[in-house]
């Protein structure tokens, strides 16, 4: 009897750790069911062993083998182009700034495109980042056409023979078709100048189940190639990216760990999983 009770507690704990990490109720239940079967087959006895199996399972789900390298290599003379997208306030501009910092640190020349012409002082914010990290910023008139700013940024990058052009875009909810169409246009207009090598979807780690819808819609409109999971320095775990990765086949490539220029890191599956497990 006491063993059964211990088992229930262990299972509840496991379920809770997944749910409270925003993994989602349905993926959680599937994972727990599979784990229960595995435990039966293997004759696993101790809670620690069960947790070990869970860790393995989570790692499998997040897939450490995925290629998470950023596509920022030049095409001959032409710079690589990165487009940064996402819903409002997730950390796009900050991630753009930090990414520029890290590329500049690697000895690359970077141009930033301030294609958020909508939000109050958005271009100023990017400009400050540009000055901070040593990247030139291309901006347009407030309220102007974001696609033409993006185009100008790409053109400037090509003209100056820089290594990477990063285009920051305005936050937009995936439910707003007009704004999503505008984003599609931004990408198409850049493509007149060169291929867009990376489309980074910036997801806020505090986001719950809505993150899945965000990712689906952005993927449809601009074909995202990587995810940047921000604000992981807080208490949120960002578990929604497990489903996002699996459904879209797009890897998390970067994580945001703070507001400073160096608070950007490559995504580490083991660190991510251990945070969910609370170790």
């Amino acid at each position, binding site marked *: 009897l006491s063993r059964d009770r211990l088992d229930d507690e262990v299972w509840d704990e496991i379920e*809770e750790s997944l*749910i*409270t*990490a*925003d993994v*989602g*109720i*349905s993926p959680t239940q599937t994972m727990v069911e599979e784990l229960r079967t595995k435990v039966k087959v293997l004759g696993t006895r101790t809670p620690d062993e069960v947790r070990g199996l869970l860790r393995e399972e989570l790692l499998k789900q997040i897939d450490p083998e995925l290629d998470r390298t950023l596509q920022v290599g030049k095409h001959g003379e032409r710079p690589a182009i990165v487009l940064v997208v996402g*819903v*409002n*306030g*997730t*950390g796009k*501009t900050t991630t753009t*700034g930090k990414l520029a910092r890290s590329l500049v640190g690697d000895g690359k020349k970077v141009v930033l495109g301030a294609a958020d012409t*909508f*939000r*109050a*002082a*958005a271009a*100023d*914010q990017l*400009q*400050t*980042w540009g000055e*901070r990290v040593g990247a030139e910023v291309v901006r347009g008139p407030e309220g102007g056409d974001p696609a033409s700013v993006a185009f100008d940024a790409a053109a400037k990058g090509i003209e100056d023979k820089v290594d990477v052009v990063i285009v920051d875009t305005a936050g937009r*909810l*995936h*439910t*707003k078709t007009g704004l999503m169409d505008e984003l599609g246009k931004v990408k198409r207009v850049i493509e007149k100048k060169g291929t867009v090598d990376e489309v980074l979807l910036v997801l*806020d*780690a*505090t*986001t*719950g*189940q*809505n*993150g899945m*819808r965000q990712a689906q819609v952005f993927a449809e409109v601009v074909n995202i190639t990587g995810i940047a999971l921000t*604000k992981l*320095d*807080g*208490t*949120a*775990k960002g578990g*929604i990216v497990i489903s996002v990765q699996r459904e879209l086949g797009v890897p998390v490539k970067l994580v945001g760990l703070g*507001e400073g220029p160096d608070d950007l890191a490559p995504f580490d599956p083991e660190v991510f999983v251990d945070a969910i497990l609370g170790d």
Partner: protein
Amino acid sequence: MFETLSDRLTSVFSSLRSKGRLSDADIDATAREIRIALLEADVALPVVKAFVAQVKERARGAEVSQALNPAQQVVKIVNDELIAILGGETRRLRYAKTPPTVIMLAGLQGAGKTTLAGKLAKWLRDQGHAPMLVAADLQRPNAVTQLQVVGERAQVAVFAPEPGNGVGDPVGVARQSIDFARQRQHDIVIIDTAGRLGIDQELMRQAADIRDAVSPDEVLFVVDAMIGQDAVTTAQAFMEGVGFDGVVLTKLDGDARGGAALSVRHITGRPIMFASTGEKLEDFDAFHPDRMASRILDM
């Protein structure tokens, strides 16, 4: 995608053979469905547990056993309970006896504080008040510029004596703003603060210092409707760190189910006062508990 809770419960109840009193098994099955629906809506787990226990209790009662359609009856109970928690007493802004009324905004990074500051200012100006915005986020790049632009759009004054971007003391700015508002006869002061994490003790201390410097009539906790399970931890941290009197739910123009509304209300007992529903200054509304309840449950 999701079935609605009504659909789900109807299917649970359609399998019942006997009418009349629901068996414990029926009630457990019902509770499981409600739990799933709430978790899919991002209601935080501890809140789901407490809520489901409460609904279970009522589902055992006479009102359900005597109902012609027990499924609809349970849905009604869930809805009523949700509205009861989300609603409570509706509370309006409290104005100071001696002006200026001081409203301080606090919340996580990117929640929508600065935008809300502009919306509140415009809303109050439209009612004949003379509000003033205070730029006390001296940390986020160009947060001060952003507030200045927002103030211009809302046609209200902005007190921004420090450039920000790491320069200036937010506590000092907040303190000075009160005298300045008095001199210029502004009857309302709205203080925009930097976004901060619940676990950032230093910045939480700073928020408490700002509060102590201005003795706000209202501290409003601004929270993104897309937030997931972290709502509980964060709301608790702000409650303990700075304390708040009311909640503003932002980005409700999206399709997030907004379970955070229930979580924050349940955990802190503080009323949700306003809804932010877009990026423009006029996208702002009083909070409607009944709409929120049906949104959470997708009914």
